[in-house]
């Protein structure tokens, strides 16, 4: 009898143990790019994420955090594998990150099917804002076309009459060119989409742009290819002849390599390192103390994921099975964002300001600077296509 009692105690203990252990840590799968010429982006995102976790005492809603970092190698087929691995074998509570729109589009199905709560911290594919929106997927970035729309508006202000558009041939590149075309009122005299991510020699396209004789060129080239584009734009002698407008091409990551070449080329962004709010000041100062350089907007969006997750885990007291309550908490965007406060639209994409930014040389250090606000409280134009299932 005694033995039986002991055995049943042991069984009871066994049965209880996993349930308790399950909620002891919050497991986060972080998908980004850590290899190749765009690895700098992934590293910046990871650094910002780690810094944000440090700022939260490495706890979310009081629970300790475990992060598993995975490299998508800029390949949709690799990205989707990593996401599946995180969901199925690591059984993560959250997926965070994802730079590339095509990687996101490939990964959305396993994410939505498994109802894995996900914070996208960069990729802004229009489909996510529209027909592929999901109750458990939130974005701390933007929809792809919002930033180029802001630049298109700015080009109108500058009196640009004709423009040549160029970008890489993948989901985001197409969205970006559509974005400029949507707000730019002048004439578009040429559009080029180049092979992504392999083509980094843009000489033939630059010759084409020169031949089209536009008032301005618009370019979207994130990461290392952006450095190549800006360098070749200067090499081709176009810099003094046809002004360049950009989206996601010159940032805190590319600027230290571009140096003078990055000056005098306007871009738009929803966050700049000098935005005057307390959360941002703390973020940028601590990031600089640790990494001796400014964070990029990629980092800022990823930093924001942590307080957002914190508010979500807090709202359910660490019971991560209450997904609907978590979703309702996330929708409030109840945290201090480093971009200043914002609201989520019905499709879980931020409604936020977009700023004009330029590079400056501040005593030998090349940094980004906010010049003006181009649009306030901008909402993406796809939200009506989102039929959010509840």
């Amino acid at each position, binding site marked *: 009898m005694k033995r039986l009692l002991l055995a049943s105690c042991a069984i009871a203990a066994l049965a209880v143990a996993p349930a308790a252990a399950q909620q002891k840590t919050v497991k986060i799968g972080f998908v980004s790019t850590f290899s*190749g010429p765009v690895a700098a982006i992934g590293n910046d995102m990871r650094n910002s994420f780690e810094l944000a976790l440090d700022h939260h005492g490495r706890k979310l809603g009081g629970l300790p955090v475990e992060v598993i970092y995975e490299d998508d190698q800029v390949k949709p087929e690799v990205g989707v594998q990593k996401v599946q691995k995180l969901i199925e074998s690591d059984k993560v509570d959250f997926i965070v990150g994802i730079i590339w729109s095509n990687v996101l589009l490939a990964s959305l199905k396993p994410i939505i099917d498994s109802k894995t709560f996900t914070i996208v911290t960069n990729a802004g594919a229009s489909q996510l804002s529209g027909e592929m929106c999901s109750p458990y997927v939130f974005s701390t970035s933007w929809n792809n076309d919002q930033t180029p729309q802001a630049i298109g508006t700015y080009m109108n202000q500058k009196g640009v009459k004709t423009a040549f558009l160029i970008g890489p041939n993948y989901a985001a590149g197409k969205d970006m060119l559509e974005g400029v075309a949507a707000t730019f009122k002048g004439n578009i005299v040429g559009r080029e989409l180049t092979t992504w991510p392999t083509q980094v020699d843009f*000489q033939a396209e630059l010759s084409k742009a020169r031949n089209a004789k536009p008032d301005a060129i618009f370019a979207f080239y994130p990461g290392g290819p952006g450095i190549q584009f800006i360098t070749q734009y200067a090499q081709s002698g176009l810099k003094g002849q046809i002004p360049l407008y950009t989206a996601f091409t010159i940032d805190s990551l590319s600027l230290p390599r571009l140096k003078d070449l990055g000056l005098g080329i306007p871009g738009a962004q929803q966050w700049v390192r000098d935005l005057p709010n307390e959360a941002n000041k703390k973020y940028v100062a601590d990031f600089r103390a640790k990494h001796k350089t400014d964070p990029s907007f990629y980092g800022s969006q990823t930093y924001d994921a942590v307080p957002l997750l914190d508010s979500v885990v807090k709202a359910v007291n660490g019971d991560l099975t209450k997904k609907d309550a978590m979703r309702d908490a996330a929708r409030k965007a109840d945290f201090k964002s480093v971009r200043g406060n914002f609201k989520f639209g019905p499709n879980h994409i931020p409604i936020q300001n977009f700023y004009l930014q330029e590079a400056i040389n501040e005593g030998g250090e090349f940094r980004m600077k906010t010049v003006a606000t181009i649009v306030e409280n901008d909402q993406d134009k796809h939200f009506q296509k989102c039929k959010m299932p509840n």
Partner: protein
Amino acid sequence: MLYLLEQSLNGIQLGMLLFLLAAGLTLIFGIMDFVNLAHGSLYMLGAYFAATFVGLTDSFLAGIALGLVATFFAGIVLEVIAIRPLYGRDHLDHVLGTFGLLIFFNELVRLIWGPAGLTISLPSQMLTAVQVIPGIYYPIYRLVTIGATLTVALLLYILVMRTRVGMLIRAGASNREMVGALGVNIKLLYTLVFGLGAALAGFAGMMQAPLAFVQIGMGENILILAFVVIIIGGIGSIRGAFVAAIIVGLIDTMGRAFLPDLVRTFLSYSAGSSAGPALSSMLIYTLMALVLIFRPEGLFPASSK
């Protein structure tokens, strides 16, 4: 018209790059009868060496010079350790062996230089364009690469056709045993030729590095084009490689410049963007197929074996 001329220059510049790569490949293939899939790895190594030395010496020219020497010796070490045992074997063994080397070099570079890759910055005076003829501005650096490659091509021609070493190389290509029987150290000769081929590939990588990225696997796509070039030009023929490289460079660039617009007149805009580059690379392979059908030895076959 000016635009056509400017795009032709772009095509020639790409052709020059292909020539540097193809020259080494065709030397090794034509003379030693050795298929070297790891040639692209030497292209990559050259770029990594140059990027490292440019960083260390703070001088573009010194970096390139040191990089060339380093790639030459890397080629020699590679030949002695890994390539030599494969000479007498079947082509399939060459392919298998050098494919293994290709993977080995990718991982080696990952271990030494990390996964992120490097960049080479140009001296500031190379960061502008000059007016080649009225109305055409062309980047100085690209003119420099064209000039440097032409010089290399000329030197290579003199070396192979006008010097004693060149005579031995040509003799070794025609009849290995006979050259050996006449008391020439054919082993050493092969090692030197392999080193030369490596240096040429490395030089191509270095010249391209400021225009692209120094990254793992950078030589793999371009190596395929280099193989096409030596097939069109005639295996073992440096003159053939030169002409074929320019033809392939022109087709690729002209295709990229004009085909998307042409396709867009029939199909949608984005279909044109996708189909244009695809069609222009198809043109290159179509040319290769035609050459294989009508002139299987290539446009300029090397003297018969």
